[in-house]
Each structure stands twice: as C-alpha cells, then as structure tokens.
C-alpha cells in the first residue's frame, strides 16, 4: 500500500474516510433495509436531526430571526457590542446589529457555499474516478498522476491565492473551493470502480453485449453511489470549514455575511478587547454545529453502509455462572490416561435484540494420552466454536453457558483468565489454526514468533538457547533453520502451516487442537502435513483433536470420531464403529455422500436442505428436517445421548433407544 493512498490534506481529507479504505460493496442495499438500519444508528440520526434543524433555520430565516439584518437602525455608542439582553438575545455586533439575526441569516450563506462547492467537487471527482477506474490503462494513469500532483500542491494557500487575485465574490469562492476539492473523491471513486468493474455481473453484462455507457449507468454507478453519498456529506463539511476560514482571513464576500465573515469582523474590530464574547462565540458555534452534524451523519452512514463489527479478539466476555450437570457415567474406549474431559459443554452466541444462537449444546468427549480424535461436521455445526471454547478464545459475543472442561486437575471453564493464560494455553493445550496466512504476524519474523512462545512459558531467556530451540523446532517440521529470520509472506502456504505446527510444539504441550489445518492447502501439501502430524504424534506421544470435514482423513488417521450436527453430538465412537456400524442417520448419510473411488460412475449423493439457524432451532431433533428416517417424535422431542454397547459409543437418535 503506497502512502499516496493516505494523502491527508489538512483541510480536504477526512480521517473517517481515510481510516476506512473503501469497502467492496457486494450489492446495492435495498432502500427499505437501509432506512431500517439507519434508524437504529444513533450517531447518524443525531447528525441528521442537527442538520435538518440548521436547514430549517436557514430556509425560514426571515420568520425565525427577530430583526432584519439589512434594515438600518438608529444606534448610539451604547448599542455597539451591547451585552445580551431581552431585546438582543445574543447581544449586538460592532455595527449595533443584532447578532442572533446575523447568525440566522449567516447560516444561509455558509450552507449555500458548502453545498454548491461540494457538488462541484463531487461531480468532478466522481466523473474522474469513474472514468479512470472504468477505462483503465493510459487514461487511468494520466488521470491518477494528475490527481497525485494536485494533492501535492497545498490547498489552502492555493485557494487563498486564487481568491485574493481574482474577485472575492460568493460564486468565485464556491467555484474555487469546488475546483480544488475533487482529489480525494476521485481516488475513492476510482478504487471502488476498479473493484466493481471486475465483478462477475459486469462481465456477464458485457457478454450479453451491453455497451460501456449502459454498464456504467446500470452497474457501476449504483454500487459507487453509496460511497459517493458518504463522501459528499464529508466534503460538504470541509467546504463549509474552508469558506469560513477564507472569510476569516478577509477573503470572503463582503456583501455576504457568512459566519466566517462575522468572525472576521468581530476579531478585527475589537470584539476581543470589548469583551464581547457573544460576537465571537455565536458564529463559531454555528459552524461547529453544522460541521459536527455532517460529520456525525457521515459517520452514521459509513457505519450503515460499511458495517464493521468493531469487536476484536481482545474483548473480554464476562464470566458467567456455570451450571454443571452430570449425565451419567460412561465407560472407557481404550486404556490410557484421560487428559482432557469435556462434559456437557454448551456455548451460546449473543446478539442484541435476538434470541441467543445455541452454537454448542451438551457436547461431551474424552481425550486420552496418544489419542487422535476426529471432529467432523458441516460448516456451521459448531466444531470451531467448541475448539475455541476449550481455551476460552471465543469472540466477544460467545459465552460458555454450562459444562466443564477438565484438564490437568482444573476446570478450564471457570479458572481465572490469568491462570489459563499462564499455565494452560500453549503449555498444556496448543492450537493450530486454519489458513495460516494471517495467523502469523506479517511484520515479525517467524523465528521471533516461535521464540516468543518459548519465552512466555519456559524460563529460557538466553538468546543462543532460544535460537537453538527455534532451529530444532523448524527442523522437526521440515523447514531449514535459516528461514527463522524470514517473514511469513516469504513462506509458501504449506510451509506456513508447518511453521504453525512448529510453533505449537514449542512448549511441549500434551494436547494439540488442529482446526482444519489442511483445508486451505492443495492435496499434495495436505498429504505432507498429515504425514508430518502422524509422525510427530508417534514421536512425541501427542494427543490431537483434528477438526475437519474430510472423512477420508479421519478414517486414515483418527482413533475416535465425534460427529456434530447443528451444535449437538450426533454420534461419538471409535473410528471402526463409525465407519462400519454408524447408528445415527446423519453419520450414515455423510458416509453415503463420500465418493467411492471404486465406483467412478456412481451418482454423487447429497443431503438435501440446509443446516439449522442456531438462534431459531426447530423443536425436537435438529437433524429431523433433513433426516430420511425421521418420524413424528423426532419433530417434537429432542433425542438424548444414548449409550450403545457399553463401549463408549454414543448416538443422539430416537431410533437407537
């Protein structure tokens, strides 16, 4: 990203626009939902109300103002800079005129200049941006270079010079402010046009024979409009500020008493020494009111048209009281010490104004030493939520509502954040995330980030020892140790994932959670990573929870399988049982859907329908709407987790009772 993208002109750029790069508008928001969302946005509403108030005052100025500023008055010395009184609510100015009336009529000038000047800017900027973005090539190059050059010339002095050397009339001012305000708009519009131009529906329209004007009119403009609208609001506020500054510097239209002009007269005609604060405060207040209104409105529009969650990974959810309930004893699958025991864990996601999404409900499993558990299910079934909950890494809206996570003699669901971070995270249980592109900090070297994990939990501070350990870890996963000094973007996808594995092993954890570690990689690299994991598991005696939706991988590598659907356990058994004697209809359908290499001509089976909405669950079994074996009871009563054969095999289905 070039710094030119952040050209910040003191008067003509806006931190709100600068700080949010233009969004990729996926579709023009339907007007109805737009208004609904906007109604709930308080900042935007306040701004809109403030703006409407000022417009009303400006339009109905003759009715609202107590005096006519143009009428001549008979005055005496006492009337100059008179204090606020009943006759003059905001006192008088240096000519004995009522400040309040001047203030009210002044709003007209400021608003008119602001609106007209900004329309010129937006028009020029918008047209330039669309042409540059749409036609590309040399045209774009030339236009953008011109924009860059214009951004280098300091705007306020340039405007000052132009006005000073030409006529300081109102139209001149509008024109000049408008002419020099198009650059930021042009840049924004161009970026957005570029983004829209390559969307599929534009290509489709072209294929159908649509000409350029048609595409611009019907596709580009509707998607660029929202951005232009937000930008317009902010450009207006800047134009008003510019006009007031010009007027204050004495370059305003002497015949038009704008707020800036009022301040100019007051300041240069002794309001300060006369102590006439009303003459100084009132016009400024007007400017602030209107600019603030526009800024708030712009902020509100921005939030509606480009919603950002504004929550992040460091938001701490409050610890709630957990209800724990035992659901009976189970028997063991195999020998081996139980390392991790999850009992009846339930996790909700809270959204204000909506019922909570029950993302995980009453899930239990056990992980023994050396065991590899495959966690299988569709997207959105709660696999990742469950894994994040184990280390309490849920996003701010997530809550563990009940259950226990027993590890190392502690209940991870209830211990303090401090204890969790110090003793358990990475040291006891480590995690490998999906899609390691962004899981590693791009501005720090890989070796540095691995060393950080070591420094955090093991008491090794000697740089040489750290370096040696990092090298050892990298070699373990098949990366040459000299790459420790490289940055993540210098690694390939597979290498990054291997680096993540190396980092996960840094503190010799007992359990590794691998959340779809190979989903983002191609098949050859997948095989490498899986082989690596299998080797490490054998060599280091690791226990692994492997989250995936690839049944083939599960069959090959896992000891036990937990099948989830819609947030609940569908089936939980050893891998042999799952593949040979699946008892839950969902597991059976999943296995059927898995293509068989021995039957290349067979039709691909699929499970019709969609996973349930977790905040609007059907009564009864969550799989019932899509289940081929569902009967009446399934739609009414949710099945309990039934133990089968006394060997730890669990299925939640009425048919199994």
């Amino acid at each position, binding site marked *: 990203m070039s710094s030119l993208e952040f050209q910040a002109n003191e008067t003509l750029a806006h931190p709100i626009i600068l*700080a*949010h790069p233009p969004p990729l508008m996926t579709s023009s928001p339907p007007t109805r939902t737009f208004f609904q969302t906007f109604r709930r946005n308080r900042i935007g509403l306040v701004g809109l109300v403030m703006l409407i108030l000022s417009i009303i005052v400006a339009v109905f100025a003759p009715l609202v103002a107590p005096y006519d500023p143009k009428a001549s008055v008979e005055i005496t010395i006492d009337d100059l800079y008179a204090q606020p009184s009943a006759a003059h609510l905001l006192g008088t100015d240096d000519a004995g005129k009522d400040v309040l009336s001047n203030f009210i009529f002044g709003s007209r000038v400021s608003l008119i200049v602001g609106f007209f000047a900004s329309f010129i800017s937006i028009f020029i900027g918008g047209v330039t941006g669309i042409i540059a973005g749409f036609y590309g090539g040399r045209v774009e190059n030339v236009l953008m270079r011109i924009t860059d*050059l214009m951004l*280098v*010339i*300091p705007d306020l*002095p340039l405007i000052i*010079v132009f006005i000073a050397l030409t006529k300081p009339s109102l139209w001149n001012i509008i024109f000049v402010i408008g002419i020099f305000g198009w650059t930021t708009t042009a840049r924004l519009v161009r970026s957005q046009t570029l983004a829209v131009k390559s969307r599929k529906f534009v290509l489709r329209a072209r294929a159908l024979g649509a000409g350029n004007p048609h595409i611009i009119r019907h596709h580009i403009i509707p998607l660029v409009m929202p951005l232009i609208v937000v930008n317009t609001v902010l450009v207006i506020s800047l134009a008003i500020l510019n006009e007031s500054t010009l007027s204050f510097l004495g370059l305003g239209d002497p015949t038009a008493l704008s707020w800036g002009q009022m301040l100019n007269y007051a300041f240069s005609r002794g309001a300060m020494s006369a102590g006439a604060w009303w003459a100084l405060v009132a016009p400024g207040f007007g400017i*602030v009111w209107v600019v603030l209104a526009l800024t708030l409105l712009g902020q509100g529009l921005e939030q509606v048209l480009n919603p950002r969650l504004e929550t992040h990974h460091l938001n701490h959810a409050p610890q709630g009281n957990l209800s724990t309930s035992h659901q009976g004893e189970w028997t063991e699958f195999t020998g081996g010490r139980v390392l991790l025991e999850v009992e009846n864990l339930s996790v909700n996601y809270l959204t204000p104004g909506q019922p909570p999404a029950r993302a995980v409900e009453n899930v239990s499993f056990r992980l023994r030493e050396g065991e590899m558990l495959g966690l299988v299910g569709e997207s959105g079934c709660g696999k990742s939520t469950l894994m994040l909950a184990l280390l309490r890494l849920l996003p701010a809206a997530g809550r563990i509502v009940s259950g226990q996570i027993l590890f190392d003699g502690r209940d991870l669901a209830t211990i303090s954040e401090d204890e969790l*971070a110090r003793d358990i995270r990475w040291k006891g249980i480590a995690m490998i995330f999906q899609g390691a592109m962004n899981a590693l900090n791009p501005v720090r070297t890989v070796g540095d980030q691995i060393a950080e994990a070591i420094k955090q939990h093991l008491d090794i501070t000697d740089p040489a020892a750290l370096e040696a350990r990092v090298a050892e870890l990298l070699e373990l996963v098949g990366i040459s140790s000299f790459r420790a000094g490289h940055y993540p973007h210098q690694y390939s996808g597979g290498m990054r994932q291997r680096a993540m594995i190396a980092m996960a092993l840094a503190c010799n954890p007992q359990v590794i959670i691998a959340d779809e570690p190979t989903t983002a990689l191609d098949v050859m690299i997948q095989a490498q990573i899986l082989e690596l994991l299998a080797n490490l598991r054998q060599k280091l005696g690791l226990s692994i929870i492997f989250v995936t939706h690839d049944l083939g991988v599960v069959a090959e590598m896992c000891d036990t399988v937990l099948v989830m659907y819609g947030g609940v356990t569908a089936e939980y058994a050893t891998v042999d049982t799952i593949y040979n004697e699946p008892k839950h209809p969902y597991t059976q359908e999943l296995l059927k859907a898995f293509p068989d290499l021995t039957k290349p001509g067979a039709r691909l089976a699929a499970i019709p329908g969609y996973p349930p909405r977790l905040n609007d669950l059907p009564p009864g079994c969550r799989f019932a709407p899509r289940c081929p074996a569902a009967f009446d009871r399934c739609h009414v009563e949710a099945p309990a987790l039934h133990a089968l054969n006394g060997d730890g095999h669990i299925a939640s289905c009425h048919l199994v009772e």
Partner: protein
Amino acid sequence: MSRSRYLLRKISWSLFTVLFVIVFNFFLFRVLPGDPARAGVRDPRMSAEAVEAIRVKFGLDKPVINCFQSLNPIKFGDCAVNPLETQFFIYVGNLFKGELGLSFHYNRPVTQVLVERLWNTILLIGLGQILAIVIGMFLGIVAAWRARTVIDYTALLGSLLAWSLPTFWLGIILLFFGSSNFGLPIGGKETAGAGFTGWEHWQDIGRHLLLPTLTYTIVYMGEYMLIMRSALLDVLSEDYILTAKAKGLRTFQIIKDHALKNAMLPMVTIIAINLGFTVAGAIQIESVFSWPGLGGAIYEAVVRRDFPVLQGAFLLIAFSVILANLLADLTYSYLDPRVQDV
C-alpha cells in the same frame, strides 16, 4: 521488485513532482490577473517611468517565455529571443542558486524573509505535532482496546467534536478566555521591548507559545485519535491476534508486541504527510495569534500582493510536502516487510 528499485521509482517521481511544482508555481503568478508591477506599489500617482523602473528592477520587462511577452493578457513576443533571457529560465536559474527573488514589500531577498519565519513556524508546529501525536495515539489505543464501551464512545465523540472545530475559531476562543482569565499574552512571539535574555527569554516565548500550541494540539489530536483507533481495531480483529492470545500472552503484551507495530503503518504515513501540510495549516493559527511564522507571512503577502514572497512560500511548502511524502514512503517501506512491489 527489490527495495532499491522501489526507492528509485519513488525518488524519480518526487523529482518529477518538484519540476511540476516549479513550473506550476511560476505560471500561477503570471496567469492570474493583476499587474505584478503595479501591485507592488499601488499608488495611482506613480509615473510611467517609475512603473517601468520597477518592472526592470524585478525583471518583469523580459518576456515570460520565448514567444509570450506576458501571459495576462496574452501578448505575443519575439520567438527568436534567447530562451535563457526569459523570465522563466531566469527564475529557474535563480532557484538553483537558492534565490527566490526580491520581496516587493520588504525589499529584501525573499529567502531571507522566509527563513526567518520558517524557524518560528517549526517551533510552533513541532511542539504541537508531537503533543498531538502522543496524546492522540494514546487515546486511540485506549478507545480501540475498550471498543464499544463508554470510554470509547466518549473519546470518539470528543475527537469528532475536535475535528469539527474550525482551527481559527478554537484559537479565538482560547485566546479570549486565556487572555482575560489567565493573563496570557494576546499575541506575538515575545513581549516587545522587554529585553529578556537567556532562560527568561525562553520563558517569555513559552508563555506566548502556550495558547497557539494548545489550539494546534487539540485540532490534530482528534484526527490522530480517530486514525489510531480505526487502525488498531482493524489489527485487533486479525487472526494473528487470536494466535497470540492462544499462546497465552496477556492483553497488554499483545497490544505492545503484536498490534501496535501493524497499526503504526497507516499512522506513520499520515503523520509524515501532515507534517508537510501543517506548514500551510499554520496560517490560521498564526494569523489569530499574530505568530511571526511562515503562515503569517503567506497571509500578509496575500493582503499586500507581495508576489515574490507568495511564490517563494508556495514553493517552500510544496517542497516540504513532497519531501514528507517521500519520507513517508521510505519509512513505510522499512516498517512493512511486505513492501516489495508498488
């Protein structure tokens, strides 16, 4: 593209921009209406010989460029004239010698006039920017950390309000209440005729510097806070922050060791660019507080139609903007290891 080629591209573009600015600057003041010679001394009783003498003194009798006697209104001239004798090339030649012409008003070299003022502006801006950066960044970090809480909303509204204040008006209000209630000076850089020396001199300057710096800081603090907050919010929702949390790092550690460096990338760029423009932005503050800086010089030059000073100041500001842009690009390329291609 390797780093050296990246730098080379940036530097060559900067040089081109410098050339553009020189040419633009020159023609700007020739195209706009008004006879520069008359503008310098606006006495209608001036005789024709006197006007001509002024013309010669300031080199305005020579053709602007080869075929044009003057640009406003356009008068054609002798295309066979030696190009190096035209105003344009004399101007460029002088530039290389560091001469910016002669001020109409002061009758002194423009360079001298501007350099005196420049240091005053740097004093004012330097202090203000540093405070604005430090306070703004701090508030931005706190607001992003505690996003969507009362602290965040208060800081957000405060910054939006600070942004909405016209710089000169904030200055006026502060000056009004500062001077009447706290006895702070009305304007200027030092108390005239007081003859302070040494530490007392600096104290005196400090008292005069207080309100302008406060104005400057408040205005820019809002902008930096908003940008820092936004950048940090973006960064804190990235995957590597979750990884850091999973590694057992505490919140403060994560912000310090992982988030800040990434969030600084857009901040550094904007700080560097602001530095370029603030010389221009100081115009408002300097005119309210009568601070003898570059901004005030521009304002006075405008009022007096002192074109050489205006031209020189313009050039100076444009150069500082270009320089700041270049520095921003260079700093960014060093901070972000991903920058290899433009």
